[in-house]
Structures are given as C-alpha cells and as structure tokens.
C-alpha cells in the first residue's frame, strides 16, 4: 500500500477508523483510540503519533502527550497532561471532565489508501 502518493490516498476523519472514550484524573485526560480492524490499527500506529496528537490539541496546551500502544487490543491510549483547565473542580467548562474530548480526537484527519477507504464508510459495526 502506498500512503504517500496523494492520487492513491484520501483523508478520512479518525472516527471512520476507530472509536474511543475519554477519562479524567485531575488535570490529565486519557483518550483511548480503538481501531475498527487490523488494517486501521496499522495505519493509526504509523500516523497517530504523540506529535500529531499534541498538535491537534495544541489550543489546550498539553504539557505532555504520551502514547501507549496495546497491539493485543488493537488500541492506543493517549495521556494528555494539563489539558483540562485544572480538571473537574477547577475548570469553568460545562464539561469539566473533558468527556467530549474523545470526539475532538475522532475528527483528526488520517491519510488512508483509497482501496481501504472504500471499506470505511460510516456504517453499523457489530
């Protein structure tokens, strides 16, 4: 598969390749990214790097972004420190827990080979 040749690739939002959930502890958010299948997981390991996620959340000024890869679950766990404006007690956000941040993550664009992209339209996963 060639992911560099733009003629053979297309950009898709992460939610077409993965699902996830956000959790909070203090001022730290963790966001799981769970691939829909093995092909998606391989692409995500390659593209969804700490640097890429840090840049995507730059407006929240993370002090540190750590990625943990869990191949047996075909999942990654991102730990974003300092992104919750102080966390559940301190933040002025309606969503002090940052529960919605998983859906900010899921909008991140991923470059996908056209052949794979054709299989990733939003559909019911069972």
């Amino acid at each position, binding site marked *: 598969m060639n992911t560099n040749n733009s003629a053979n690739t297309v950009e898709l939002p992460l*939610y077409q390749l993965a*699902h*996830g*959930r956000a*959790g*909070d*502890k*203090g001022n*730290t958010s*963790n966001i*799981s990214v*769970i691939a829909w299948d093995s092909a998606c997981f391989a692409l995500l390991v390659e593209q969804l790097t700490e640097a890429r996620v840090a840049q995507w959340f730059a*407006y*929240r*000024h993370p002090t540190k972004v*750590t990625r*943990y890869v*869990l191949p*047996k*679950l075909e*999942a990654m*766990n991102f*730990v974003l420190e300092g992104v919750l*404006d102080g966390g*559940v*007690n*301190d*933040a*002025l*956000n*309606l*969503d002090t827990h940052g529960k*919605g*941040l998983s859906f*900010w993550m899921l909008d991140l664009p991923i470059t996908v080979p056209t052949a794979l992209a054709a299989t990733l339209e*939003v*559909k*019911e*996963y069972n």
Partner: protein
Amino acid sequence: MHTEIRDPMASRFPLGEPKGLKPLYVGCATGFSGDRTDGAGPVVDALIALGGGVLNFETLAERTLALAQLEKRKNPALGYEPLLDDLVGPVLKRCLDHNIQIVSNFGAANPQACAQRIFALARAQGLRTPRIAVVHGDDLTKPEQLTFLLKRLGSDIDPKRVVSANAYLGAGEIAQALKDGADIVVTGRVSDPSLTLGPAIAHFGWSMQDWHLMGCGTMAGHMLECGTQVTGGYYSVPGQKSVPGMDCIGFPIAEIRADGTFSVFKAANTGGRVDDRTGREQILYEVHDPARYLTPDVVADITQATITREGQDRILVQGITGHQRPDELKVNVCYDNGYFAEAEISYAGFQAKERAALAGETIRKRIGHLLPLRVDLIGALSIFGDDAGELMAQGYAGASRDVRLRVAGVHLQKEIAEKILREVTALYCCGPAGGGGVRTSLRPRLDTLSCTIPREAVPSGFSFVQEQRA
C-alpha cells in the same frame, strides 16, 4: 489491618480456608452516585439463578464524598448515599434470602449511619437482622491528621477550609469482613475495584501478596465499577455504534474464576450490548500507563490483556497480571475554595450567534476586570473550547441560528461571583435584542488536593455494627 469487634456469629468462610473453585459472580448496580437506581433488580435475579454472589454499588466519585461531608455537618445522621433507600430497599430481601452479599462504598462520609439506615430498612420489611460490617479509617479529618496532610501537601490553606480528607483504602478489610460472615459491607472511600477484589480474595482465599491474582481481580472490578459503561452505556453512536434498549441497559456481572480470568456479561431481558468493543472502551477508561494501573492493592498490568467474544453479550478477559502494590496510599483533600457562578441567556433567529457574542463582549467589558470569565456560545462552540477562549478566538464557532450564551467564573468572594448572575440577568432589558430564558446558579466551589501517605498513617479496620433502636 485490624478488627475491633469480631462477630460472635461463626463465619461462613472460616479464616484462610478457600471456599473452593466454583466461580464467583459479582454484579455492579451503579456506576456513580446519581446513576439509575433500578439496575439492581435484574442483576440480583441473575445472581439468584447462578446460586448467589456479590452485589456492588459504586457511588463515590471524587467530589461525592466532600458533598456528603457537608450533608453530615448539617445533620449528623446523614452523609451517606442519599439514594440508599432506592438502591437497597427493593433488593434487600432477595439478597438476604439468597446468599448475595452487598459490598458498597455507599457509606460515603458516614458509614455508621448508613448501616443503621439499612437495619431500619430490614426491620420495616420484616427481614432478619443483617450482619453489617463497616470499614473505617479512610477519614483523616482529625486535627493532627489534617496538619500532617497539609504539611505533606506543602499547602498553606487554613485547615478550617478543609471539607473532607480521605485515603483510598484497599480490599483487605472488605475481604476479612466477608470471611467473618458479613451480609453487607459498608465502606467510605475505598478504591473502586477493591469492592470486587475484596469478595474475590474472600471467596478464593487468594493471597494478597499474589500480585498476578490481585491484578486480575482489580481489573474485574475496574470493568464493573462504572456500571453500564461496559454493557453498552456511554457507547452508543447512532448509525455507527448502536446499542439496543438504551432505556433499560443491563448492569454488568463478572464471572471470576480461581485463576483470575473472568467473563463479563449482563442480566437476561435487559438492553445494552457487551462485546469486545464495549469491553475495550471500558478497560482503558481512566487508565494512564497500561502497565501500571495503581490501586492500594496492586499495580495492575493490562499490556497483554485480551478481550474476546464468548457468546451473545458476553466477553472473556484474559492476560492481565500485576506487580507489587504501591508503598503509599492516595489521599484526597477537599476544601472550600470560593464560589462558582454561571448564567445563561438564549438568542435565536437572524444574527443569533452575533447577538450572543455581543452580549458576551458586553459582560466582559463590564466585569471582566473583576474575575476571569469563560464565555460560551452553546450551539456554536461550548464544549471543545478551552477556558482561555483560544479556540473561540481562532473562529472555530460555527454559524448557528439558535445560541445560548453562557458566562461562568469563580471568585473567593461571593459578592464578586454573584456579579455574573446580575449582569446576565440585566441583559433582559439592556440587550442585545431578543435575549430570553435567563437561568443563573451560584454554588460553593470545592477544590481537591491529592498526595500519597505511608500506610502506617492510615489506621484502617472494620467492625460489625449493632442495631441501635430508637
């Protein structure tokens, strides 16, 4: 760990003797204080059909205990889970009749009063008097304890502002209370997974130094502790991740085996969904380093965990292990920290977003110098934005013809915080045009500090409680 009063009634599980290799079934009927209260019925029915087990209610989020302390200050007979009657009342008889032990942190700030309330519920229903054990030692609000904690935290806040200070206890007291024959174990702050691990230790006779098994039992508890979050609750995205029966999602039950592997399923005739996808979302929930999930009991390790479908709405979880428990216990100190104010007003139709934004700017000009303000345009941008408004300034807010302005802020002085309420209310006449539906709220703000302290500084234990008749 020490026990003060041993129940004279002989124990069902003689000390140190494993009950055998039959699996242990643990159901969890709430994921937090405020969860649905009708979850326990189907879980208890399932446990009865399986020959008994343990029923957990997890009801203590970080702030819940501080709020319970405030209740206890107002009324010394309160300070436990406010919905206790709704949770326990409907299932108490069946639990006592069918060898189902209830283990819960619904004691919150007042486990003793909670136990007395359960005695009263049993008496009102004409049931036998339950054997209730209460775990103590998590509360660290004695003056000398507070002095020690604040020094440890390096904090100079006035101890009078502290509302609650609690250590996260582990599974040891719960396990021993069950071995000694408790029908019900009431705790305050314990680590959530300990509510499940404790019964597993008691049931299988696991050594608390067997880090592998402590890791397994802890993660079984972790899968259960958020209630329906593992059974399809909090999973649903219509058109992509649909979940049947969202109005009646079944709460989870774990079948834990002596080797530490476990399955998760839900009661029959309930809504929801249990599969490898709902399982993976929950196993990583609030986990940081998957090799080091810290609890008082163990450092759990899920790096090699697998989750596979075993059947309809049933998963098998394997590959978990654990490492030696942390030396110290985590403590949360909650303290009064001023007032939180928020106020909202709506704009709809032509130029709605622009009118809402103008209202926000107007309020910033009038009181922005008194306290930091957060301004949201609900319907255009409110959740993804940061408090500093950086995303808003980047023009991320989309066009919208139905926008609710929200202004929020905190201040130590009530009268300053209150200005947010007054300024938003005044928009009714001062405009912009067409603003309506003002709602305001002002509440005391609680803040949390966390540290760890040596286990020796936390004198934990449990005791069997006698019913006190009025």
